[in-house]
């Protein structure tokens, strides 16, 4: 590739115009739906009918106010559910991962095996029986019923990720801590936790995106509109505003924004999560 031919062709090769064109075309097609969403979110229905494609002035930012009014409770619920789930997951998974990585005891292999198996089984397979269990416990239409499956899925993945990570921490660190008289709890808190912050961050992000994206579970267990999370809420919202294109698209955008921002600023952890959280356990 680097071996140059005649000079005029060489400069074209050098700039790789063909490659870039194809890649830009890919990106354009992939992003088109989202761009369309942004453009339409600023129109009235009249503008939408008149100029289907173009940005049309004046821009109607009030569509966002209309949409926000309806979307905001869903965002709030999602944030609460995600926050509770993350707190539980980090607590459970960090303790379990630490113990499984650093101690040897009867049943260690069995317990870890039981966790690994769950990685292989998608949570959706449990949808029907879990629904009945929650119904019998009287938990339908609560935050708890949403939190539980995310906590289970996240604890499974988190325990595995943290165990693998803690096994990679050099033993000398723990030995040094013990020489200084640190107990197990102290080692967990002062050696392992600070070192595992990146993994904990990755697990948190996976959980946020799981809560944001999960559809069937909230669809089935929540019928009270004021408790809906984003994905199911959006579908309801779509039903309410099906012919009000501006606010509809504005709502989609508002619902996407938190995830898009997380993705933008934490893309390193996000991608690590996507690639590390692999076998679709949730």
């Amino acid at each position, binding site marked *: 590739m680097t071996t140059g031919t005649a000079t005029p062709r060489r400069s074209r090769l050098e700039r790789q115009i063909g490659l870039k064109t194809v890649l830009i075309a890919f990106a354009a097609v992939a992003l088109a739906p989202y761009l369309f*969403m942004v453009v339409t979110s600023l129109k009235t229905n009249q503008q939408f009918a008149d100029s*289907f494609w173009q940005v049309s002035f004046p821009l109607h930012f009030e569509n966002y106010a209309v949409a926000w009014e309806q979307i905001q409770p869903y965002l709030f619920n999602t944030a609460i559910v995600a926050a509770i789930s993350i707190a539980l997951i980090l607590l459970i998974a960090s303790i379990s991962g630490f113990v499984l990585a650093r101690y040897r005891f009867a049943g260690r292999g069995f317990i870890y095996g039981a966790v690994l198996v769950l990685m292989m089984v998608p949570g959706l*397979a449990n949808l*029907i029986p879990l629904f009945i269990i929650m119904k019998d416990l009287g938990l339908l239409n609560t935050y708890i019923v949403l939190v539980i499956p995310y906590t289970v899925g996240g604890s499974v993945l988190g325990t595995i990720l943290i165990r693998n990570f803690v096994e990679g921490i050099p033993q000398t660190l723990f030995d040094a801590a013990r020489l200084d008289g640190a107990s197990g709890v102290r080692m967990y808190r002062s050696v392992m936790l600070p070192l595992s912050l990146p993994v904990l961050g990755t697990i948190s992000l996976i959980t946020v995106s799981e809560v944001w994206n999960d559809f069937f579970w909230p669809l089935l267990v929540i019928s009270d509109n004021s408790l809906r999370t984003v994905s199911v809420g959006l579908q309801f919202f779509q039903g309410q505003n099906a012919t009000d294109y501006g606010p509809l698209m504005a709502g989609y955008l508002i619902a*996407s924004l938190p995830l898009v921002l997380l993705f933008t600023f934490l893309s390193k952890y996000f991608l690590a999560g996507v690639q590390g959280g692999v076998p679709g356990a949730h």
Partner: protein
Amino acid sequence: MVVTLDAPSLMPPSTEPRTTGSRPRKRVVIRWWIYLALLPLAVFIGYFAYYPAVSAIFWSFFHWQPAAESTFLGFGNYITMFSDQIWWSSFRNLGLIFLFAVVSWVFPLLAAELLISLRSARWQFTMRTLLIVPMAFPGVVTALVWGFFYSPNDGVINQTLKALGLEALAQNWTGQESTALLSLLFVGFPFIAGLPFLIFYSSLQNIPTEVLEAAQLDGVGRFARFWQIDLPLMASQVRILLFLAVVGTLQYGFVAYILTAGGPDNATMVPILRMINVAFQGGDWGYSAALSTTLFLITIIISAVVVLARKRGSSTADGGAM
């Protein structure tokens, strides 16, 4: 699934707190607090993952009425399942969805190859970022926006056809049997933003430059390089992707729910939707439990096969992603 028992020597010192006294009988000491520490995890996965799975198996043998007396049916529900046309056609749809998913890897693969060939690091970074941005959007938003694209009157696709003077080609894309499934499959086109692309791209990045330089010295062209270097080096990753595609396909559902709800006339029915419909619309919980158990077993069997194949296969395959 690599169980790394990397250094047994690490374990013994850490297991035994250096208390004085109990030296001679190390093994007898049962450190109850270890089990206490694992209790929350055990309770959660026991009660909310294993117990439901087992109870689904149990109830699948009943005419299960959660609110009333359930009657034992034996294999009745399973016999019903074998003659359930909708259930089996939903698996045919899954097969098509899986095939389409695998074939559509052409796009991420091509994009990764093109991207890695860009010499400007800045261009590479920019294009990579643009290509993966759709991953940041919630799946439901993507499905809803595509639903809007497909809508028969104001939909983007039909409007485009109209603008091009091809009004005759306009369709009720998701509303007619002939195009509904295809419409679902095209959601997310060109399918670049996703795990396959990330995996292809990172394995291409990880090919040692010496290998590429040696190939260049031997006069290996760009296409030959793809077949002889890139593809073989990606083989183990592709196997992981295949497994994930199977598991992902079995879970396929919400896009169909949002765009077509399994219709028209069950043309886009998938197992998850069938299972939900049977329980929540038909009220036949026992039968739904049988369907759920079947799905569960299929997943377990596929996973077990893959795990065994991986164990038996090259031990060099790094379990990084699993």
